[in-house]
């Protein structure tokens, strides 16, 4: 086993103690969103979007959004706590772990959490019969990619700030617009040009587009490869930024 696997193991042991508090919301939240948006709003959008029933169209968007939200949640307060409040990163840094092991193990756990939330969502959505393709199975690796593309840069951001009021700022000014303008609830074609650029720049829309292609069985074409590459670029850049910030906080 590599040292980062030991760090992942530690986070899993920790999660075994706390999973109950998050289990209900993991299952109930997708159900509520689907009922509210899919059926509620969908009742008014009778024509569907691009010839697809609104519920079927919105579910992949909600899945990608869930992946991003879970990644955000895991890379913000828990990372802040590991530096500032419980200081467990410092305990890990005193052991024979490298900064990359500490970061890599924690990111691996964040992806595990993303996969749990997405699996719950997939099960609920499958019960509603919204999937139209075997490619739906690709949603899991896709969600892991979206999760890392969000978690790594957010972990870098969290490691650069000293107070959780900066996390509130992140959620207000980055997360909310990202969720609204990334094609989760409506196609970004209906956005004015500048807001479309916001969608293109942030990772979520790329994940939404790919996830939607997968569950609806559409061919994403060449754009699909660009989405993948762009998400990968967020992962790689996020990793290097986070590694640098972690290094500066733990080894000085």
């Amino acid at each position, binding site marked *: 086993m590599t040292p980062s696997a*030991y760090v992942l193991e530690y986070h899993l042991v920790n999660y075994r*103690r706390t999973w109950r508090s998050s289990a209900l919301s993991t299952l109930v939240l997708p159900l509520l969103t689907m009922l509210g948006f899919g059926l509620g709003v969908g009742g008014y959008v009778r024509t569907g979007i691009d010839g697809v029933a609104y519920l079927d169209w919105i579910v992949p968007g909600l899945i990608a959004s869930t992946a991003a939200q879970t990644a955000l949640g895991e890379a913000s307060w828990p990372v802040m706590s590991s530096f500032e409040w419980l200081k467990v990163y410092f305990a890990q840094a005193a*052991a024979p772990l490298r900064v990359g092991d500490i970061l890599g193990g924690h990111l691996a756990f964040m992806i595990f959490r993303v996969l749990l939330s997405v699996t719950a969502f997939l099960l609920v959505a499958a019960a509603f019969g919204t999937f139209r393709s075997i490619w739906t199975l690709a949603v899991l690796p896709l969600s892991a990619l979206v999760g890392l593309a969000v978690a790594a840069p957010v972990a870098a951001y969290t490691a650069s700030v000293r107070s959780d009021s900066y996390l509130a700022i992140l959620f207000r000014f980055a997360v909310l617009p990202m969720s609204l303008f990334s094609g989760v609830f409506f196609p970004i074609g209906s956005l004015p040009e500048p807001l479309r650029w916001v969608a293109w720049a942030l990772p979520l829309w790329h994940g939404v587009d790919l996830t939607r292609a997968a569950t609806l069985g559409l061919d994403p074409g060449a754009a699909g490869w660009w989405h993948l590459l762009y998400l990968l670029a967020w992962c790689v850049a996020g990793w290097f930024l986070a590694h640098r910030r972690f290094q500066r906080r733990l080894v000085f």
Partner: protein
Amino acid sequence: MTALIHARGLIKRFGDFTAVDGIDVDVQPGEAFGFLGPNGAGKSSTMRMIGCVSPPTGGVLRILGMDPRRDGPAIRARLGVCPQLDNLDVELTVRENLTTYARFFGIPRPTARRRAAELLEFVQLTERAGSKVEPLSGGMKRRLTIARALVNEPDLVLLDEPTTGLDPQARHLVWERLFRLKQQGVTLVLTTHYMDEAEQLCDRLVVMDGGRIVAEGSPRALIERHSTREVVELRFAAEDQGVFAGKLAGIADRTEVLPDRVLLYVSDGDDALAEVHRRALNPASALVRRSSLEDVFLHLTGRTLVD
């Protein structure tokens, strides 16, 4: 035998600020070695460099014969670190805190469980093994942190102010455990600003001030070198103790006037006190005591408060 810690001209700078300003240190196997000094003396910076979580700015540093710049993980695998502030996992149980930490050292799970049980016995927390960390008292958390530092059977244990903030009972229990470790031949390196702690635990110590080592030796040798055998503490019923300084001239090797009392550093306290009475100075109270490490410490690092 080679030194476990070998430092020559060790320097640590943070920007313009020099925290450690060229210190030479050697710690031998089996020794209990102390870094004493006021806040900001450079003790914790030195400990962080020894713990391989802070690269030296200059000088030579060898830990267990290895170079911290290159062999950090290999060195840390053989160190036990008890930090100044507890960084335990409050969500985990007492036992899990030890077993998960053991995993970071690549220790197999069954071995980790066995060692956790032994260590909990050693720090007298067996009864709390299954309870969460959160409700434990400060002393219990400290003992658990010490147990965690021992989980990899380290060659060298680093303790940064091990009893700061503990009540007297808890402190004595920690000392007693550390003393037991020392008897088992474990090499201890600790920082403290408690003189009684240093006298209790350290075979040898250095006094640091302003990033430099200002004295080195065993507690007894330091007292002999930097203080007298005894100290007479006099309190006069006067607003200004200073007016008595002149009248006390010639009695002591060194006379120190403080706002509330006058200290006479002498070889024989009773003789000196007799002389004080012979001069009819009539102090409101007088105390003859043996010189302590605290006298050395205050003499070397001054009485000015460093915050």
